C-alpha cells in the first residue's frame, strides 16, 4: 500500500500484527492465538493528531503499546523517523523512547503512590541522564507550570490530587524528556465530564507550543472528532476506515463507521430524534477465531457472499480516504 506524503510521516506503521499465544494443558502447548492486532497500516504526520477509535477489544490500545515496543509485535514494521523500531536492540530502543512517550488511561494506577510528584516527573530525566541537580529541579517546576499545577505541590504524593490533577502529572512526566511523539491511550475516559474538557484543552495547547504529534486512542467519538486531524476506525484488530476528520464524520463509507457514528448519543433531543439510527445486531466476535474474510461481516447489515470469502483490501477510494470494504465503490 502506498500512503501519500511519505516524507512528512513521523511514524509509519506497516502491516503490524500482534498475536498473543494461548497455551493449554500440562505441556503448555500453544493451542491458538488472540489476534489482537491483525495487519494495520497507517502513518502519523509530524505535528498532527491521529485519532484511533473503536470499541473495547478492537486492538486500539494494543496498537499503541506495540508502537512503543512495550509488546514485541508478531509481524510488521514500525518506522519512526526513518528507523524500524522492531529491529532495534534493547539499549537503542531505550534511547529512542526519549522521543516517544505515553499518557495512560488510569491516572490512579499509572502513578506510583509512594513517590512524590517531584520524583515522578524527575524519574525519566534521571533514567535518561538529561538533567541533574538544580537544573532538574527547575525543569520539574517548569513542567508543573506548563500543565497548570502549582510547583509548590511538588513534594506531595499522588493521593492528594484529584483525577484531573493526576492526569496533569502524567502529562508532565510524558513531557519531561521533550518527546516529539506521544501515544495518548484513553487519557480522559476515567475523568468527569467537566474535567475532560480541561485536560483536552491542555493537550491541545501543549501540542501547539511544542509541535507535538499525538496518536490519540479513545472510544469517545465526539472527543476524537474534536481533537483529531485524521481518524482511523478499528474493529476486531483491523482498521476499517481512515480519513480526514470531517471527511470521515460527514461521509463515512464503511458500514461499521456508519453504524458506530449513528449510535453516539447527541446532547440535543431535537437533533437526536431526527437521526437515522443503525442498530447493529449481536456482539463483537472473539479475536481468537475471527470471522473469515471481512471481520465485520457477521454484524454487517449489507454483507454479501464475497465478504466471507476474501478479506477486503485497505484501499484509497478518494485521496486520503482509505476503506476496507468490498462493497464500497
Amino acid at each position, binding site marked *: 500500500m502506498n500512503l501519500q506524503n511519505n516524507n512528512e510521516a513521523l511514524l509509519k506503521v506497516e502491516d503490524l500484527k500482534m498475536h498473543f499465544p494461548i497455551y493449554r494443558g500440562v505441556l503448555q502447548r500453544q493451542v491458538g492465538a488472540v489476534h489482537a492486532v491483525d495487519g494495520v497500516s497507517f502513518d502519523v504526520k509530524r505535528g498532527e493528531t491521529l485519532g484511533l477509535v473503536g470499541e473495547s477489544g478492537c486492538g486500539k490500545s494494543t496498537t499503541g503499546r506495540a508502537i512503543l515496543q512495550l509488546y514485541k509485535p508478531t509481524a510488521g514494521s514500525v518506522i519512526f523517523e526513518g528507523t524500524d523500531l522492531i529491529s532495534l536492540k534493547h539499549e537503542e530502543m531505550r534511547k529512542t523512547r526519549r522521543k516517544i512517550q505515553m499518557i495512560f488511561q488510569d491516572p490512579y494506577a499509572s502513578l506510583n503512590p509512594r513517590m512524590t510528584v517531584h520524583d515522578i516527573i524527575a524519574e525519566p530525566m534521571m533514567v535518561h541522564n538529561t538533567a541533574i541537580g538544580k537544573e532538574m529541579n527547575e525543569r520539574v517546576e517548569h513542567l508543573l507550570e506548563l500543565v497548570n499545577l502549582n510547583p509548590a505541590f511538588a513534594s506531595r504524593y499522588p493521593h492528594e490530587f484529584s483525577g484531573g490533577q493526576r492526569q496533569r502529572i502524567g502529562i508532565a512526566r510524558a513531557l519531561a524528556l521533550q518527546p516529539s511523539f506521544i501515544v495518548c491511550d484513553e487519557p480522559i475516559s476515567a475523568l*468527569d465530564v*467537566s474535567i475532560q474538557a480541561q485536560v483536552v484543552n491542555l493537550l491541545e495547547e501543549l501540542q501547539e507550543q511544542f509541535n507535538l504529534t499525538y496518536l490519540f486512542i479513545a472510544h469517545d467519538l465526539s472527543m476524537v472528532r474534536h481533537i483529531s486531524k485524521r481518524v482511523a476506525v478499528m474493529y476486531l484488530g483491523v482498521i476499517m476506515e481512515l480519513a480526514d476528520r470531517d471527511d470521515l464524520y460527514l461521509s463515512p463509507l464503511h458500514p461499521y463507521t456508519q453504524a458506530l457514528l449513528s449510535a453516539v448519543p447527541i446532547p440535543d433531543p431535537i437533533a437526536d430524534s431526527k437521526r437515522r439510527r443503525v442498530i447493529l445486531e449481536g456482539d463483537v466476535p472473539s479475536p481468537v477465531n475471527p470471522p473469515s474474510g471481512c471481520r465485520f461481516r457477521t454484524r454487517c447489515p449489507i454483507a454479501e457472499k464475497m465478504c466471507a470469502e476474501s478479506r477486503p483490501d485497505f484501499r484509497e477510494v478518494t485521496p486520503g480516504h482509505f476503506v476496507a470494504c468490498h462493497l464500497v465503490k
Partner: protein
Amino acid sequence: MPDLLLDIKGLETQFKTPEGVVHAVNGVSFGLKEGETLGVVGESGCGKSVTMLSVLGLIPSPPGKVVAGEALFSGQDLLKMTNEEIRHVRGAQIGMIFQDPMTSLNPVLTIGRQLEEPLMLHIGMTKHQAQERAAELLSLVGIPNAKERLNDYPHQYSGGMRQRVMIAMALSCSPQILIADEPTTALDVTIQAQIMELVKRLREELGMSIIWITHDLGVVAGIAHRVAVMYGGYIIEEASVNDLFANPSHPYTLGLLGSLPRVDEVEHGRLFSIEGQPPVLYQKPTACPFAPRCKWVMDRCWKENPMLESISNEHRVACWVDTKTGRSR
C-alpha cells in the same frame, strides 16, 4: 399532587467518614409521574446515585444515614418502612438496574436460577411457572434461544447480554417504576444503542415509569422526558428535556453542555471548560455549592444558597443569575 407515582421531599443523606461527615444529599425534592422517564444527570459525587439508594433503603448504615425527608410511593413513606417491608417493594414494585452487569450477577448461579428467584419470592410462583416466565422474560429482552440459555452462567454471556439479563430481572415482577443507575456506562456505544432501544420499546409495551441516572447528557437527551441536573447534593436545574437543552439556565448546566464536543458538529475552537473541580461537602453548604467555579458569581452567592425556583412552566433553576444577560434575575 395525586398524579405523582413517586414523590420525594427534602431528602438528606449523610455519610460518616474518618475525615468528617460528608453531606452527600442536601434536601432533594422531585416527583415522578405515571409513564414518565426522568433523567438524573450529574458528575461523580453529585449525589445522584445516593439519592436513589436512599429511596430504596439501600444505603449501608453505618456509615450512611438518611437524616431527613420523605419518599411517598402509593401513599406510603418508603423511608419509614422496616427492612422487611421495603424488601417487598424493591424488586416487586420498583425494579433496579445497576451499572456493572458483571458484579450485579452471582457468578456461581445459572441465569435461570437468578431470574426465577424473585418470581418465586415476590409473586409466589411455583418452580415450573417461574421457569416458563423466565424464558419469556429473556426473549422479551431480545436474547435468542432463551430456553436453552437459562442454563448458562453469567460468564457465558457478553456484557451487553448481561445487561439485558439485568433488565429482564428488574422487569420480572412487572414493577411500576424502573430505576436504572448508569446502566449503559460500562458498555460500548453500539451496545448502548441496543440497550436504549430495548428500554424504549419495553417502556411503550409495559407502560413503566423510569428514573435513569447518568453522567452522559447525550444519553439523557435520547431517552428522558424530563431532566434533573444535580450538583453538590442538590438539584440545581429541572426541566422538560427539550426545554433544558434549548434553554439551559444554570451556569453549571450551561458549562457542562459547552464542555461537550458533539459528534455531529464541525467546530475547531477550544472546548469551554469549567475550571476547578466538584466539591466534597463536609458541611451542609451555606452558600451556592457552584459559586467557586461560577463565572457569573455575585456577592450574594457566597452568603446564601439559592432555592430551586420556577422560571417558566415546569422549568426550575437554583440560581439568581439570568445567564442570558449575566444579571440578577
